[in-house]
């Protein structure tokens, strides 16, 4: 499954096909609650970014490269701090809106570290937030303006809201995750993007939730017995 053309051959992966560790980090298809208790299903399809160079060289829009959405620090799961890295496909839609926002703001837009995609295993992922869908950005600088005053944050919040009704911003204030006082937070909500080349008739549920058939259980037992036998030999 590849997304050709302007993606420069970026591979789209179904996170259910990834190894156990990555599946446990990305939690594809799992339901999680947001701060208000509403349930959301985590994304399943990701772009696989094989190297830093590929991420830096992949332009989602004229002014945003893929790497700008995966700037993280040690709070991200260790496995996701090294390449290949993964970002939900919906990041492309965010980039489109950010490009519009950049044009209206009239200056370069800088996404903060931990301010783009955050996996569900990121230490800042306390409850569901659009960051885990790749559809939110925390912007700490616009042009040469560091966003740390109420005046600057409210000015750019207004501009963001003028771009589209789809954009949600956090008001200026000091309550973490509900307000923002050192960045502009904008998001598009919980958008899941399914690339057109994906066929959705494959397994729809997370493996751990999928009912197991009797023959599968039997085969699992047989494999375990065989493995023990080999160890003893």
């Amino acid at each position: 499954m590849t997304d050709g053309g302007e993606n420069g051959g970026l591979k789209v992966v179904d996170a259910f096909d990834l190894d156990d560790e990555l599946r446990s980090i990305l939690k594809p298809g799992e339901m999680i609650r947001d701060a208000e208790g509403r349930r959301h299903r985590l994304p399943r399809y990701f772009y696989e970014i094989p190297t830093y160079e590929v991420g830096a060289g992949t332009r989602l829009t004229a002014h945003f490269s893929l790497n700008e959405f995966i700037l993280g620090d040690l709070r991200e799961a260790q496995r996701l701090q090294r390449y290949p890295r993964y970002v939900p496909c919906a990041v492309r839609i965010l980039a489109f809106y950010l490009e519009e926002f950049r044009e209206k703001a009239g200056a370069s837009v800088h996404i903060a570290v931990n301010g783009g995609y955050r996996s569900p295993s990121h230490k800042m992922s306390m409850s569901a937030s659009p960051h885990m869908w790749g559809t939110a950005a925390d912007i700490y600088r616009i042009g040469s303006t560091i966003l740390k005053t109420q005046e600057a944050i409210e000015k750019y919040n207004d501009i963001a809201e003028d771009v589209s009704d789809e954009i949600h911003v956090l008001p200026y204030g000091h309550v973490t995750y509900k307000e923002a006082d050192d960045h502009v937070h904008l998001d598009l909500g919980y958008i899941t993007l399914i690339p057109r080349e994906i066929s959705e008739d494959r397994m729809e549920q997370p493996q751990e939730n999928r009912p197991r058939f009797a023959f599968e259980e039997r085969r699992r037992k047989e494999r375990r017995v065989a493995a023990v036998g080999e160890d003893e030999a």
Partner: protein
Amino acid sequence: MSNAQLEKSDSVAASEVSLYRSLLKIKRQHELGDLGIAFYDAETTVQWSYNADQYFHAASTMKLAVLLGVFRQVERGELTLEAPVHVRNRFTSIVNQEPFMLDLGRDADPDVYGQLGKTMTVRELAFWMITKSSNLATNLLVDVVGIGTIQSALDELEIDGVKILRGVEDQRAFEAGLNNEVTAHGLLKLLRLIADGRAYSQRACDEMLNILLEQQFRSGIPAGLPKAARVAHKTGNISTVHHDAGIVYLDKRKPYVLVILTQFEPEHGRGTAVAEVSRDIFSTLANGAYD
């Protein structure tokens, strides 16, 4: 006891009395409210102290405990020195969990706040926390390892006399009287463990010493020493205290560990008391009083 031993014992006592008088004179001259001193000389194994169990506001000497907490996590494999940390000026007070920002104009270190919005490694932050006493780097590292971990490090190494409650510039906590505190004995124990290679591992101690030797504020202990002396140390200053705690390396002898804590009224300023105490102690040791 032979005559020679008695003479030697008299000589040591005389030196200690002389040192004691000299320190009291410095305390009086500089109008210090309080003075706490402790040293241990690895060459002669002599340990000496004055008012060394009294608690002082730790000021930036608390960064020694943060350094210890960082290397605890590194040695346990829970952190790497190359791990990236988001440089962000937003912290949470221990009082009511209220957010606060540092006054970056007061911080001596543009090397760190110039990186706002980007990442720096744990190693870089530890370096600037010690060598330029960066408050921003300190609070970032406190957030990374946690106050509980720092206190665990102190407890595991049986360091009494160093109480760490919070990061720096937490004004709400300061107003509530919740401060980091140290005694001269507490910091002496901490530095002796590093000097002896007994703080987690020899490798960790070597790394910590290398950072401490790069200290850029030299108006305390180093100012009372010959230029050839190398000092692995950490200073601490606020409007009412001036401290220095370090390991002094001199040619052809084992190092000595020295902690000098001073407290004064804000209108008096910090003066040169720490350097003068350092000079007196160096003179006492250099004159062979304990040889």
